[in-house]
């Protein structure tokens, strides 16, 4: 199954990079958000590490919606979804493949957001890099697990971006709060608080929704219109 998931992810990545608009839109919108929020900085003042963390994760959440809309829209043309469903690949391979592709695209867009946060919002990484990376990967897994499950909800809908945002954003709150707090710890020059509970929360979120996704994805990804 993993081989088929990898094939699915590779196909999605190739299509996204060659012709898809999801990644470009995600990067542009995220950059724009970070720049626009930098306008809230008073002249000569600073943006607090927590506000910077919140802006970064807000940009990532919008990026997630655009990336997964694009990943699921790819198969809307020419009945490709029905083709995948009738292939011998188990439907879970589609979920894992979409998740992997989404994770790669989200990480690429965050590679742009992170320097933008440093430049526009005046942040430095004072905390340990391992914490920043662990938060980034852990929280991203939580985001893509939900994105890969619910991205299929709005397939065939005209206003899919807005529909998906309205549904996904409140669900993501635990993982976004954890990401914001841990990033604030990394950006802050003050001594760090305890990150363990927040990392545990991210792990619990990832595990719970990975399980739920495995069980529920076959119901949402179907041939029905």
């Amino acid at each position, binding site marked *: 199954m993993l081989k088929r998931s990898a094939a699915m992810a590779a196909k999605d990545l190739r299509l996204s990079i060659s012709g898809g608009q999801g990644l470009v839109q995600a990067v542009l919108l995220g950059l724009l958000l970070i720049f626009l929020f930098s306008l809230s900085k008073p002249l000569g003042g600073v943006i607090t590490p927590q506000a910077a963390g919140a802006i970064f994760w807000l940009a990532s959440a919008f990026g997630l919606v655009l990336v997964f809309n694009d990943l699921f829209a790819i198969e809307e043309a020419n009945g490709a979804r029905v083709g995948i469903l009738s292939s011998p690949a188990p439907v879970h391979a589609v979920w894992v493949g979409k998740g992997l592709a989404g994770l790669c695209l989200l990480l690429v867009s965050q590679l742009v957001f992170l320097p933008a946060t440093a430049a526009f919002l005046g942040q430095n990484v004072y905390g340990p890099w391992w914490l920043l990376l662990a938060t980034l990967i852990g929280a991203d897994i939580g985001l893509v697990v939900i994105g890969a499950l619910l991205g299929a909800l709005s397939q065939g809908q005209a206003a899919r971006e807005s*529909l998906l945002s*309205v549904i996904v954003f409140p669900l993501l709150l*635990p993982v976004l709060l954890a990401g914001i707090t841990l990033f604030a710890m990394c950006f802050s020059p003050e001594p760090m608080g305890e990150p363990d509970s927040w990392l545990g*929360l991210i792990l619990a979120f990832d595990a719970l*929704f990975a399980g739920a996704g495995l069980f*529920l994805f076959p119901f*949402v990804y179907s041939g*029905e219109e």
Partner: protein
Amino acid sequence: MMVKILAAAAAVALLAHQYMIWFYAPVAQSGPVQKIFYMHLPCSWWALASFFVVFVSSLLYLFRRDPAYDRAAGAAAELGVLFATLSLITGSVWARAEWGHWWVWDPKLTTSLIMWYVYAGYLVLRSTPMGRERKALVCAVLGIVAFLDVPLVFFAAKLWGSAHPDGVARESSGMAPRMWHTIFTGLAAFGLVWGAMLLTRVRQLATLARLEAMLVWDEEA
């Protein structure tokens, strides 16, 4: 008939509840404004009960594929959002009078607000144009995911910072027995209102489904 009995019982219980609020329960230290609590608490509890009904109905729909469960989930979500809205409004008014702020960061408040957002989104999904079976399926999936999220949202909000009078809403220590009686009467009265509304809405949705099926048949004929 069942709805009529429930509605009549609800009317009597609501009157009794109002009597108890104003004439039976003692005035709390914070003054008469605390009486909002007697309506705030039942709204929150029955909102939570509605969301639990959405979860259970959604699970049952996935396993049995009976449209009745989908209708029950839809009706419960509508009632849940209604009761959660009332709970948020009454809570906000009470907080303003009691603490001087319309909104404070408290795990319970935050969880209620996030649940309101999630289930309002669920209702938006229910009203989007989609095939009937597909819509029922995706709504069932969202109904399950939404309820699974609740404990995590509560825990996250608690970690985020609970520098607020967490015990105030519970008031377990300083409550006179008459206050408890009023609370339980309120829970029962609102429960009857909730039951009558849920049953009515489920029946309305069943009638709607029957009419839609007849219309489709007519068009085909």
